[in-house]
């Protein structure tokens, strides 16, 4: 048996859930902050109740070290994952940059630069955005938990398999349509953008917008047609990240000496990949659910630009041991 992988990798899945939940709750809280700011502006600070002044002071104290202009203290973190400012650092979704470039048919470098850090991280970590940050992913994973609940109650959720390449067609169609119509149409069907926007509309502007129906339909699609179907088959952002992360450096790999072919990794993989037979590919979002579930510590992170091919049956599994107990040609097998 080979050496066990670094013990923390097993717990990354919990950290991932924490990150997802944090991003999502930030998306819910930031519009409230915005509403509160407007409230303070409307009632001058001196007229606020002492408790409210305390709240304002606390918030200001937390953000003050990071901004130069005291009047903009609470503007330090604004926006959503589609595009936002984080203590003066502007970050945008690479798909926003691509869509805007296609719609305007020109390069606007200041905006493209805001997508640079996400692009570099994607080249390093692949589709990590989908598993670690995307606020829609958070809801989709809760939705697939609902599917498990339904299955326990005897209702079968859809587990169809469609063509993975379909999302690339959606991405290309979106960019071409952006070019033709001259507006960023990918924003209308890209779930994280839709979710961020709809939460803001609901909290600050008093009502859900047009995207809520669309998102509800994608939830139903995931529930009734295919598990995580939108992310796997339709999401244009997922397609872009998959392409960017094709030769990612950090990837999950199976240690064949530790594997016992139990196939728990295949069962737990939300994206329907095949860790059991080393089938990760560009779709893997490094969510580490398979590492967390593996009973024999057979999955770990490796720094490699490409996947290894199928390494054969796991050495702790029955098939490998039967084959090797009776020799490679299998003479004397019962």
């Amino acid at each position, binding site marked *: 048996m080979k050496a066990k992988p670094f013990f923390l990798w097993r717990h990354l899945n919990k950290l991932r859930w924490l990150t997802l939940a944090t991003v999502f709750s930030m998306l819910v809280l930031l519009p409230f902050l915005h509403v509160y700011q407007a409230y303070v502006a409307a009632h001058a600070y001196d007229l606020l109740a002492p408790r409210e002044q305390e709240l304002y002071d606390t918030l200001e104290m937390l953000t003050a070290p990071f901004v130069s202009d005291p009047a903009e203290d609470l503007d330090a973190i*604004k926006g959503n994952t589609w595009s936002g400012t984080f203590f003066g650092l502007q970050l945008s979704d690479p798909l926003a940059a691509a869509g805007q470039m296609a719609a305007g048919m020109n390069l606007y470098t200041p905006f493209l630069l805001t997508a640079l850090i996400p692009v570099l991280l994607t080249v390093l970590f692949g589709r990590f955005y989908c598993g670690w940050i995307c606020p829609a992913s958070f809801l989709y994973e809760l939705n697939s938990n609902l599917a498990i609940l339904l299955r326990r109650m005897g209702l079968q959720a859809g587990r169809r398999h469609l063509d993975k390449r379909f999302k690339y067609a959606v991405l290309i169609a979106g960019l071409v349509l952006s070019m033709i119509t*001259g507006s960023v*149409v990918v924003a209308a069907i890209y779930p994280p953008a839709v979710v961020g926007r709809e939460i803001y509309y609901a909290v600050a502007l008093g009502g859900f917008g047009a995207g809520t129906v669309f998102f509800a339909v994608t939830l139903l699609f995931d529930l009734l047609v295919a598990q995580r179907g939108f992310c796997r088959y339709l999401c244009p952002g997922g397609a872009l990240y998959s392409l960017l992360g094709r030769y990612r450096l950090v990837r999950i790999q199976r240690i064949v000496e530790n594997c016992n072919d139990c196939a728990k990794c295949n069962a737990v993989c939300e994206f329907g990949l095949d860790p059991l037979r080393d089938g990760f590919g560009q779709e893997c979002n490094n969510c580490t659910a398979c590492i967390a579930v593996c009973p024999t510590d057979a999955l770990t992170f490796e720094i490699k630009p490409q996947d290894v091919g199928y390494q054969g049956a796991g050495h702790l599994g029955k098939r490998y041991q039967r084959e090797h107990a009776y020799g490679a040609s299998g003479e004397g097998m019962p």
Partner: protein
Amino acid sequence: MIQRRTVLQRLMYAAGMAVTSTLPYGFARLMVPEARAGFSTHLRPPGVLPDEHAFNSACIGCGLCGEVCPPRCIRFYQHEGGEKVNTPYIDPEQKACILCNKCMEVCPTEALTETPRNDIDMGIAQIDRTACYPWVDRVICGACVSICPLGERAIGFKLWNQYQPVVKTDCVGCGLCVEVCPHPSLPIRIVRRSEGTVTRHRL
């Protein structure tokens, strides 16, 4: 050697993929019917690209301008928006722009570009003299003149009568006068600069 049948099959498959991949966009578009025709009081935020088409292609619909707006006057086109869906607008009848420049500073794309206050062009105010109180009844009002952030350069009283307001060419169309106007039919409103009475008479 590849048979003609397989080539045809692959072509059919690719064509099918190309057609069906546009369905999500069509579906999203179904939920935002065409923009309503007719007169609308909606303005674009300050510093907007002059060409409506260029603005639609530059705006990614992130909503940052609305989130930093202190008076919360920036809203976003929804079901009625058509191709303008998720892009910002200001309805001065509800809440008007205070020309604070925050939206232009925060906009990640060039959709809202930072513009000096005097060069902002959201439109120009126009007064309906058959409805405005001082113009019709010689009563005392002056609400629009007293709220104007640009002061004497943008709107003032007609010389020989203290309270009849007159728009001047320096008006940038922020719409505060529309918000404050006490007349229920809003005799003051923001129109496109080329359509404003003042500018038309000057040109």
